[in-house]
C-alpha cells in the first residue's frame, strides 16, 4: 500500500487522467449548479421581477471589499482573517511556480508566478486561518451551536492541499513522494467537492448577494451592508 501511494504509477495517474476528471467535474458541476439555479428561479414570482444590476453590484462590492460593511467592521479580526484566507486560498494555487511549470510542460503556456517565499508564506497563512476557524468552531458558543462534523470535513477539504503542499515543499514529516501524491489528490478532491458541498458558496455568493442587494436597494430603498 505504502509503495503504491508513493509510487510513480499513482503519481502519473493523479497527474494525468485524474486531473482531467477533477477539472471536468469542477467546471461541469459548477455550470450545472449555477444554470439549474438560474433555471429554477424562473418559477419564483419574486426573483427576476425585482433584479436590478446597479444594486446587485452595490451589494457585491460592499461585501468583497474589506470593512465595507457594518458587520465586517464589527468583527475586525474575523474580517482580516477571512479575507486573508480566501485571498491566499485562491491566489496561491493559481500563481504558484510549480503549478505553472506543470502547465507549461503540458501546453506551453505560462503566466506570472509568485516568488517562492511569498507563496510559501501564503500557504502558511491559509493553514493558520484554518486552525483559527477550527478553534473558533469549538470555542465560540454561537458557532459551536450550529457546527456539525460536516463543517470540519469541509474545512479539512480546503486545508488538505495546503498542508500537504507545505509538507512536500519543505520535505517535512513525511516522505516527499507521499506528500506530493496526497497533495495532488487533495487538490483534486477539493475541486470535485466545490460544486457539491457547501463549498459551493464560491458559486452562490454572487447570485444570493445580487438578489438580496436588489431586494434591499431597488425594492425596499434600504441598504444591506
Amino acid at each position: 500500500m505504502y509503495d503504491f501511494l508513493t509510487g510513480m504509477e499513482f503519481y502519473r495517474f493523479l497527474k494525468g487522467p485524474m486531473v482531467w476528471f477533477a477539472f471536468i467535474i469542477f467546471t461541469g458541476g459548477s455550470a450545472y449548479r449555477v444554470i439549474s439555479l438560474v433555471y429554477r428561479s424562473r418559477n419564483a414570482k419574486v426573483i427576476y421581477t425585482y433584479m436590478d444590476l446597479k444594486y446587485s453590484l452595490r451589494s457585491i462590492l460592499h461585501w468583497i471589499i474589506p470593512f465595507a460593511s457594518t458587520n465586517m467592521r464589527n468583527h475586525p479580526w474575523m474580517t482580516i482573517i477571512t479575507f486573508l484566507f480566501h485571498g491566499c486560498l485562491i491566489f496561491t494555487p493559481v500563481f504558484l511556480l510549480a503549478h505553472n511549470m506543470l502547465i507549461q510542460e503540458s501546453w506551453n503556456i505560462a503566466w506570472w508566478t509568485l516568488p517562492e517565499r511569498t507563496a510559501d508564506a501564503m500557504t502558511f497563512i491559509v493553514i493558520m486561518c484554518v486552525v483559527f476557524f477550527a478553534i473558533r468552531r469549538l470555542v465560540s458558543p454561537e458557532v459551536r451551536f450550529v457546527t456539525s462534523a460536516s463543517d470540519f470535513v469541509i474545512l479539512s477539504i480546503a486545508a488538505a492541499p495546503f498542508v500537504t503542499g507545505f509538507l512536500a515543499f519543505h520535505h517535512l514529516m513525511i516522505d516527499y513522494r507521499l506528500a506530493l501524491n496526497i497533495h495532488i489528490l487533495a487538490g483534486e478532491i477539493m475541486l470535485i467537492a466545490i460544486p457539491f458541498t457547501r463549498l459551493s458558496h464560491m458559486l452562490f455568493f454572487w447570485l444570493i448577494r445580487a438578489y438580496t442587494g436588489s431586494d434591499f436597494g431597488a425594492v425596499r430603498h434600504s441598504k444591506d451592508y
Partner: protein
Amino acid sequence: MFKVERKPVADLGMDDTAKGLAPERIEKVMRWVLERESDARLRTYVETCIHCGLCSEACHYYLSYKRDPSYAPVSKVRQTLWDILGRKHPADGETVKKYARIAFAECNLCRRCSMYCPFGIDIAYLLALVRRICGLLNVAPQYLQDNTNSHIHTFTQSWVGQDDYVDTLQFLEEELRMDILNARIPLDKTGAEYMYTPHSHEVTFKTHLLANMARILNVAGIDWTMPSTDGWENTNQAMHAGYYETMGMIERKHFEAAFRLKVRRILAGECGHAFRAAVYDGTRWLGWKTPPVPYVSAIQFFYELVRDGRIRIARKIQEPVTVQDPCSFVRNRGLGEMLRYIIRATCEDFREVTPKLEHNYCCCAGGGVINYGPPWKFIRMEGGRIKVRQFRETGAKIVIAPCHSCHKTIEEMSDFYKLGLHVLFANELIVKTMEVPEAMRAVQQKNEGTGGV
C-alpha cells in the same frame, strides 16, 4: 452540546391543535410548503450557509438573552428547517409545536440578520416558511388565529363591524368640528387624491389617532376620503399566521375599495405590518409587482407636508426626544431619513439612537408578536431588553414610534422597566406642534388657542 431551555407557555392555539395532528398530515403539509410553494431560494440558502454564526449579533433576541446561542438566526434555522429538510424530525404534534414556538415567538421577521449575513441570506424568508407550515397545521398562537378569524368575518383585525366604523367616523367628525371649522371626514368621495386607511384600533380604543389624521388632512387642505365599506382597514395578521390565502383576500378587498372610489393614492396609517402586507406580501400574493394603487405611508406623507409647507410648525417640543425605526418602514422601505426630518422639524432636542436607521433593533413586537396576547407578553419584555438599554442610553423622555406594534410594546416596556418614557406616533407629534390657521379655528378654539391631542 448546548441544552435549549425555554419557559413553558400555555397557548390553546398551539397546545390543543398540536395534540391530535396525524403524522401523514404533517408530512403532507411540509412537503407541500417546502417542495411546491417555496422557490429556489430555500435550498440555495440552506446549502450555501457556511454556519459561520456571523448573523448572531444581528438578532435582538440573541442580544437580549445574554448571547444565548440558541437565539441566533442561524440556530433557529438549524432547529427547524435543517431538521425538516434532513428528514431528522419526528412527525408529531410536539415537534410542530417546537417549530411553531421558534418561528412565531423567537423571530419577528425583521430581516436585520439579512444585513449581517456575508451572503445576504434572507433568514426571515426561511422562518416565514416554517410559520406557513405551522399555520397550515393550525398550530399558531391563539390570539393570532383569532385575529385571522376576525379578518375573515369582518375584514378587520379586531372584530369591528362596518356599522361601528361608520358610526365612529361620524362621531369623530362631529367632535373635530368643535376645533376645526367645517371639518370633514369625507366618506365614499369618488376620485379623491388620497384614501386614508387606518388600523382598526383607530376606530376602537385609539380614536384620537384617527381624529389626529383627520385634523391634519383638514388643516393641510388635502383632497381625501375614506370608504364606508369593508376593505377600509389594512392590517393583515393572516400574513403573520401563515394563512396566505386569507392574507390575499384581505388585500384584494382593500385594493378593491380604492378601485371603487377611483382614488389616486392610498394613504396608510402608522402601522408597519399593514404597510408591509399591502406593499409587498399581499401585493405579490395577488400577482402584482407593486401595489396597484400607489401606497403612501404616513411618514412620507407628513414629510412632504412639512417640507412643502402645507402645514406650518408653530412650536417645538422641548423635552429630549428619541426615535424607534419600525422595520417595515425603515429597514424595509428606507423612510428613516424622512422620519428624522419630521422629528427635527418638530423637536428641539433630538437624541439619535445607536444603532440607527436600517441597523436599528426591532422592538420585539413585530411579525405579529404584539398580537399573541398575555401568554406571550414576557417574550416581548425579555426580548426587548436590548431596546430598553438603547433608549436608556439616549436619556430621552419621549420616543417617536410611528408603528402600532412598536408603540404598544415600548409603552409596555416603559411600564415594565420603569423607564418613564412617553411614546408618540408621528401624527401626535404633528398635531402637538402644527399651527391651525386662524380662519380654520372653530369658535371655542379661537378662545383657547389650539386644540390638544
